[in-house]
């Protein structure tokens, strides 16, 4: 093999601490190396041409590039090598930046280490074999999980591009949290007015199959080729017959027993219900936990009054399977609503604020319902306890956010803006009312955001007080809020009529479970994790599964919509070709050696190991061995490390190659 070595300075990144010329010179003497050179920016066009030209001039059939992490430019260099007619898998990267220059200070030490790493890569490339990428077909259908604004946006984008979409929502209606909001910052346009047309568009779109009141139960397969099992929960209403007239809801005798989820527990609803009048689809469900029929069998009022005979008490959950090529996760968020320390939890709760104890201490979504024209007070400001107009409202930010003691260390990002909006909406309607906002920092990065907050302060007279509130207690119908203005250094006590807590955004309680079902990573908070925070922000590390909206991290509507469109674009990129290319560096079983212990199957994080039966000519079972599903295998090597009989190898990273690398260092 004729090997060429190319050392990149990475501007000053490597060059500052590694003597690149010395490395290149030393590499020239390694056995097998016929050409060695260093250059300021190897990834640049001239740099790549240097490699291509050398391949031609020196008839190279092996290339080692000493540069940044292979995460960064392995693809770039492999492509350059391939363009010059050499198999791309005969190109190896030695990481001289993250592994050397960024972690060492002494130039001599760093240079010696760089030389070692090059020697190491040279020994590996000698044992590399030409590989070809694996090709698999693509099913051009997208599953979107979650029907809030992110899911709606992603579904519409993909569907409008002409691809089929299956949209799964676990609640009876799509719309998500955005449908609950009053007006939206920084433009103060009505949330429902901009959202409901999009909901109807989804419902009527010929390319979108909408499955509400449904949940994803199982995901099998791999990028381009998923098989998804969906549970369509029983509504006890035949959706082919129901016209959404609402007679059943009106006549349902259960009116007070169930709290309205849509109104955030501020009102009650009937046992058979649609969450809100603009629900899509406008087909009710029966809440069996309160319905008299399901508890005692003694009522069937809804069935009696239904003119379409659509009530169907015997309905059962249905299991559907869908063939899917790409999945977009858009499951959204919940609000942190804990008053006391929950049992068996590290979260301590906010007993000092009396949430859950005092009726007029509410959270941001409850305030949205009160402020909303479609809400329980038709948008008039009344406090929940006695319906009086609150003349003094205190807003408290960062409740559960930026609080590693009682909540979460992260910033929930949207609260600064919605709190300013809340205070503004209140001041617009209650002119003689006083609004106080306790804050720590005002985080208003975004187009017209800072201007919006300043407007609340300068024009609408909202009083901002810099400090966290210590405690709230009730005295004579007022809520005594104990704070401190840390700017003036004076204690502040406010006797408020109502208190609004900007509670933290948290991941859906079942997010981690869903992540396991779907097979994507999640962080300690339950948020789904992207592959690369900067360059691949909407992709999960599992191929073909993309992320949109607040299921990834706290974010507002514009950010969620942008992310949803990005995820949709990623799905469409996948659909751009009929066949999918995958890295050939996957596990391979030596069936002669495999003893069928299936330790590999147990440790495989991607469910890529299957059981293969080996039979003789007569069809008698000889033995069972492990078999690697090349579509699922991500080439992580865990099976390789686990196999007791050494009968699984990772192509491109065989034991022989690894040992050769290690020996080169000794």
């Amino acid at each position: 093999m004729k090997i060429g070595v190319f050392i990149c300075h990475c501007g000053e990144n490597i060059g500052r601490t590694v003597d690149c010329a010395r490395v290149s010179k030393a590499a020239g003497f390694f056995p097998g190396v016929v050409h060695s050179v260093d250059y300021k920016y190897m990834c640049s066009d001239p740099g790549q041409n240097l490699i291509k030209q050398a391949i031609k001039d020196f008839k190279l059939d092996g290339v080692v590039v000493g540069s940044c992490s292979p995460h960064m430019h392995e693809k770039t260099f492999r492509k350059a090598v391939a363009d010059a007619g050499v198999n791309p898998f005969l190109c190896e990267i030695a990481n001289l930046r993250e592994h050397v220059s960024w972690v060492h200070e002494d130039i001599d030490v760093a240079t010696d280490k760089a030389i070692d790493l090059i020697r190491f890569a040279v020994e590996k490339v000698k044992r590399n074999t030409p590989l070809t990428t694996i090709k698999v077909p693509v099913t051009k259908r997208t599953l979107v999980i979650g029907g809030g604004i992110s899911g709606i946006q992603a579904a519409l984008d993909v569907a409008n591009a002409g691809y089929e979409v299956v949209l799964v929502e676990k609640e009876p209606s799509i719309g998500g949290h955005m449908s609950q909001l009053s007006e939206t910052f920084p433009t103060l346009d009505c949330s429902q007015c901009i959202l409901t047309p999009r909901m109807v568009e989804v419902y009527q779109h010929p390319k979108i199959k909408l499955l509400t009141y449904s949940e994803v139960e199982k995901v099998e397969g791999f990028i381009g080729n998923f098989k998804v099992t969906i549970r369509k929960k029983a509504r006890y209403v035949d959706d082919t017959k129901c016209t959404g007239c609402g007679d059943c809801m009106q006549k349902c005798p259960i009116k007070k027993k169930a709290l309205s989820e849509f109104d955030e527990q501020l009102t009650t609803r009937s046992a058979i219900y649609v969450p809100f009048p603009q629900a899509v689809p406008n087909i009710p469900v029966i809440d069996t936990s309160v319905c008299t029929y399901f508890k005692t069998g003694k009522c069937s009022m809804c069935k009696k009054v239904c003119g379409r005979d659509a009530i169907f008490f015997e309905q059962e959950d249905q299991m559907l399977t869908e063939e899917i090529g790409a999945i977009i996760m858009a499951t959204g968020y919940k609000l942190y609503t804990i008053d006391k320390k929950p049992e068996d939890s590290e979260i301590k709760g906010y007993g000092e604020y009396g949430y859950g104890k005092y009726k007029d201490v509410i959270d941001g979504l409850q305030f949205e319902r009160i402020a909303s024209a479609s809400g329980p007070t038709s948008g008039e400001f009344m406090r929940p306890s006695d319906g009086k107009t609150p003349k003094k409202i205190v807003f408290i930010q960062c409740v559960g956010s930026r609080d590693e003691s009682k909540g979460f260390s992260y910033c929930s990002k949207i609260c600064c803006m919605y709190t300013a909006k809340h205070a503004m909406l209140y001041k617009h309607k209650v002119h003689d009312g006083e609004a106080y906002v306790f804050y720590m920092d005002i985080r208003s990065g975004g187009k017209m955001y800072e201007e919006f907050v300043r407007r609340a302060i300068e024009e609408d007279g909202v009083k901002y007080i810099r400090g966290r509130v210590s405690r709230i207690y009730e005295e004579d119908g007022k809520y005594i809020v104990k704070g401190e203005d840390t700017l003036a250094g004076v204690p502040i006590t406010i006797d408020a009529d109502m208190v609004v807590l900007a509670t933290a955004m948290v991941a859906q309680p079942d997010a981690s479970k869903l992540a396991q079902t779907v097979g994507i990573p999640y962080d300690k908070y339950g948020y789904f994790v992207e592959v690369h925070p900067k360059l691949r922000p909407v992709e999960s590390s599992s191929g073909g599964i993309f992320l949109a909206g607040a299921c990834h991290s706290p974010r507002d509507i514009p950010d969620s919509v942008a992310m949803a469109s990005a995820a949709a674009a990623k799905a469409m990129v996948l659909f751009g070709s009929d066949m999918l290319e995958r890295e050939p560096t996957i596990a391979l079983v030596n069936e002669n050696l495999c003893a069928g212990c299936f330790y590999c199957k147990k440790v495989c994080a991607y469910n890529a190991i299957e059981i293969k039966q080996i039979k003789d000519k007569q069809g008698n079972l000889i033995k069972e061995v492990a078999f690697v599903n090349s579509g699922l295998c991500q080439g992580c090597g865990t099976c390789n490390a686990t196999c007791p009989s050494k009968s699984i190898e990772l192509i491109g990273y065989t034991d022989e190659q690894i040992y050769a690398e290690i020996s080169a260092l000794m």
Partner: protein
Amino acid sequence: MSHHNTTHVRTISDDITDITSQNPELCYQCGKCSAGCPMRNYMDDAPNVIVRYIQLGLFEKAMNSATIWLCAGCLTCSSRCPKNFDLAKFMDAVREVALRNGVKVKEKTILKFHKAFLKQIKNHGRSYEVGLVRDYKMATFDLFSDVENSPKMLLDGKLNIFPHNVKGKDKIKSIFEKTEVKKCK
């Protein structure tokens, strides 16, 4: 990336951290401690400001504040701190370094009380109220406060005329000697 080799010069902040084992920079100055402090109205500086002084290296300001002596150690701040910063412990440490540095204590009567109290413990191993009141009153010349409550307590046998001396009295004394906070100036 380059790293700078700097020699760290020890400050009073390090003395405080030695006692508390917590980084003063943990505090992000939200003021929840001050908002809930029962002594806040009697203090000159807000409790969060004391931490700020240390963060800024304004040690004299912190040590000269009446706040550090008025802190009642009720732990409300430590309990509610969103950063798990134990401010009550931090206040203990600031007081201790203030004594070490021999600063003029603003709340003299409070310190005199603590000294009078500890004197009884040092001498007897347990609290001795009559001795405490005697020593405290001698130190402050505040001879007449609380005199109205004493006769009843004497009658009820709650004020012991003679101290109870623990057997390990000498050991207690040696504990005091070994842990005494010495002025370093």
